[in-house]
């Protein structure tokens, strides 16, 4: 299990290679990369800043991954979330889940993203032509998180 909060970029290929290096028991690696878009809620976005709560962030991310590991049989998980200033096209978050079979890897990867969206203390502030604005939480993210049931 590898969990990082960092301002630096990450490399999906390098992270997934690290997960599988030297192993021959992994049958499936599901991964996800979330990226900063040039458009949100109808406005052009020139840049964004990701604020977080140092200390709690790492704890919340570890709890998400442990919850996933308790629900599915997983072989390894990598979760990296960036903070600080990001430009459109920049990767923000990476989740990679290695399992014996694809169903578990897919489910755990999506679960981690859904829970991260509602439980990990990150906040996005966007720079738009109308000025800076804090991104509002989406009701659709709450819905996505609730479909996994109670923890």
């Amino acid at each position, binding site marked *: 299990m590898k969990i990082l909060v960092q301002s630096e970029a990450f490399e999906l290929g390098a992270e997934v290679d690290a997960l599988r290096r030297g192993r021959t028991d992994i049958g499936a690696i599901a991964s996800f990369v979330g990226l900063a878009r040039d458009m949100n809620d109808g406005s052009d976005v020139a840049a964004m800043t990701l604020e977080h709560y140092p200390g709690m962030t790492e704890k919340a991310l570890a709890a998400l991954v442990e919850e996933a590991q308790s629900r599915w049989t997983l072989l390894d998980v990598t979760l990296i979330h960036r903070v600080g200033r990001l430009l459109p096209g920049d990767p923000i978050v990476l989740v990679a889940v290695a399992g014996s079979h694809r169903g578990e890897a897919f489910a755990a990867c999506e679960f981690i993203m859904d829970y991260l969206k509602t439980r*990990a203390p990150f906040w996005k502030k966007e720079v738009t032509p109308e000025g800076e604005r804090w991104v509002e939480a989406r009701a659709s993210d709450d819905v996505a998180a609730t479909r996994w049931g109670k923890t």
Partner: protein
Amino acid sequence: MKLRVLYFARLRERLGCAEETLDCAGSTVADLVAQLQARGGVWAEELATGRAYRVAVNQDIVALDAALTENAAVAIFPPVTGG
């Protein structure tokens, strides 16, 4: 009891405060929130009943009836928007 209170993101900006140390007369998160609301102005507005904010005590998100402990770190912040 003595508490360290942290504010994040939009709340930090609106309240003009990132962190403070204060004495809380009550024993629950709700007591602390009532004490902050009593400051009036943006404090009453942003922490009004029905406004969407979250509270973490010692880095765990808790409900308003959660107990506070001496020297706890209490964080108050908007719903999260990472990922």
